[in-house]
């Protein structure tokens, strides 16, 4: 006949977790937390990237439309650089603490001279390129381009 167990013995066997169980649980939670922190960090970075891309897309498209609105003859040949802050303020002609750089480049494939002065040839094709760079990461986040022609839009 089995001797009755003492109350202490019963309590020890019935309550709490074993050390091994605790260690395993802690390890699982720890590893999971590390993964989740990484995942959260990734999500945060991705959101930042999305914000930057959306901003770059907007400001890049706006810059392209501005050149288009000048038209074939009046678009300024060469490169124009402007800067925008991360909160969207701008454009500014100096970098300062601004976050984004917008470079608009207009290149013409043919020039004429009138009375010795260089002008855009009537049959030229003018290429317009816009590149938006995130100065925080030094990466190009948006680029777009179009062309201008006499009689075009």
């Amino acid at each position, binding site marked *: 006949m089995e001797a009755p167990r003492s109350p202490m013995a*019963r309590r020890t*066997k*019935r309550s709490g*977790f*074993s050390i091994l*169980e*605790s260690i*395993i*649980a*802690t390890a*699982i*939670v720890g590893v*999971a937390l590390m*993964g*989740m922190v990484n*995942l*959260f960090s*990734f*999500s*945060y970075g*991705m*959101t930042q*990237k*999305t914000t930057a*891309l*959306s901003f*770059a*897309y907007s400001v890049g*498209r706006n810059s*392209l439309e501005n050149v*288009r609105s000048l038209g074939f003859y009046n678009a300024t040949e060469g490169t124009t650089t402007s800067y925008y802050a991360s909160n969207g303020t701008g454009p500014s002609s100096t970098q300062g603490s601004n976050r984004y750089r917008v470079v608009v*480049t207009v*290149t013409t494939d*043919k020039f*004429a*001279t*009138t*009375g*010795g002065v260089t*002008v855009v*040839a*009537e*049959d030229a*094709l003018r*290429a*317009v*390129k816009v*590149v938006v760079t995130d100065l925080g990461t030094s990466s190009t986040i*948006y*680029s*777009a*381009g*179009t*062309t*201008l*022609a*006499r*009689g*075009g*839009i």
Partner: protein
Amino acid sequence: MKCQSIPRGKQRGAALITALAFVSIFSLIVGGVAIYSVGNNNLAAREADYASAIHLADAGLNYELRNISKNQFNAGGFTVPSADSPDTGSVAGVSGTFSVWVTDTSGGTWNNSKGEMILYAKGTVNGVSRQISAHGVHGDGLFDNYAVYGINGVNFNGSGSSVIGNLGTNGVYSGSNTATTGQISLNGSNASGVSGSNVTVNPDPVYFPTVDQIVNSTFPGPPAGWSWLSTHNNNGNARTFIGNSTTVSPGTTQVSALGTTIKLSKGAIILPPGDYYFTSIDVHGQGQLIVDNGALSTGGTKGLVRIWVNGNGGDIMSNPITYTVSPNDPSLFRMYYNSPGNFQIDGNTASGGAFYGHNATANASFTITGGSFTYASVIADNVTISGNSSVQFPSGTVGSSSDTFWLWFGIKDSWKEVPINGGSTFPDGTSN
């Protein structure tokens, strides 16, 4: 009292289960956030690609507009791009490509004589494509810009000779820059001979259609061109009278058989509105050519008189051409000269119109001489202005809706987005 025991299996593992539950729930939450972030980023990237694609399509539209305006008459250098064989390109430094093609307004094959066109352009970036379409219309015509254009050269003989208006050439300009009152355009690497504040130097030549191209387009037949014109002209409508008067009235004797040559030293040949075909023209002495674009001889409606010359050259018009239309309307006279030689024009003329000579294999030339003063747009392989003569760009519009060739094309209104590989009309059912 007997204490009820909890089975051992139900006690142990609770921590693990709790941990796993915690991990699972938070993994789902954080994973969801990550998926949302990635999705949002993809959406933004896709949106940016869509925007870039439409800009590239726009680039294609302008590319083709320039290509057509610049190269359409460049023999061997231009093919009308079709949906099956579009022109393609890109903007340097920008990812993505465009493809572009044109049709006529009915969806068929376009050519210059149709004037209007539908342009389609598709931009593609990272697998995202968008297509736009626009209605293209002609701009400047052959006779809208220049008083004189010498495709191979322009020659002024004599200090008193001049051009009042703009002048252009793809060849050598021989004369002072002050002989031309307007702008002088030297186009292409072969153009030279003059400098000054009124001289514009363009890197590329301007291509013009040959008279053969024009006649083939104007009279598609079959048989097309000269063959058609030789048997379907209005030479039989010409009228004549003997005498010195140039007063034209209805009922003037109609020529019974004018044939295709004019050799006239006395009297006048009257040409009512229509197309006339000749192999040689020699009007001298007291002979006179009356372009009756006012239709005075027929009592009909004023209209276009076109003279088509395809012979051997050596043609001469020693006396002034009289035009009957009133008020002056230079859009109602055209002379197309395809002979491999020279057409000499003397004498003062008012109103005028356009003289055009361009032969693909030989020079079709005009010489304005004899102290004449000609109101016209003169475009030919070679143009010589001598003997104190002048060519003045006519007042009024030289270009005519009946002209079938244009040098420039542009976009009417704006473009609209259309379904990829869609039909010839926009989603709203219009074609413009």
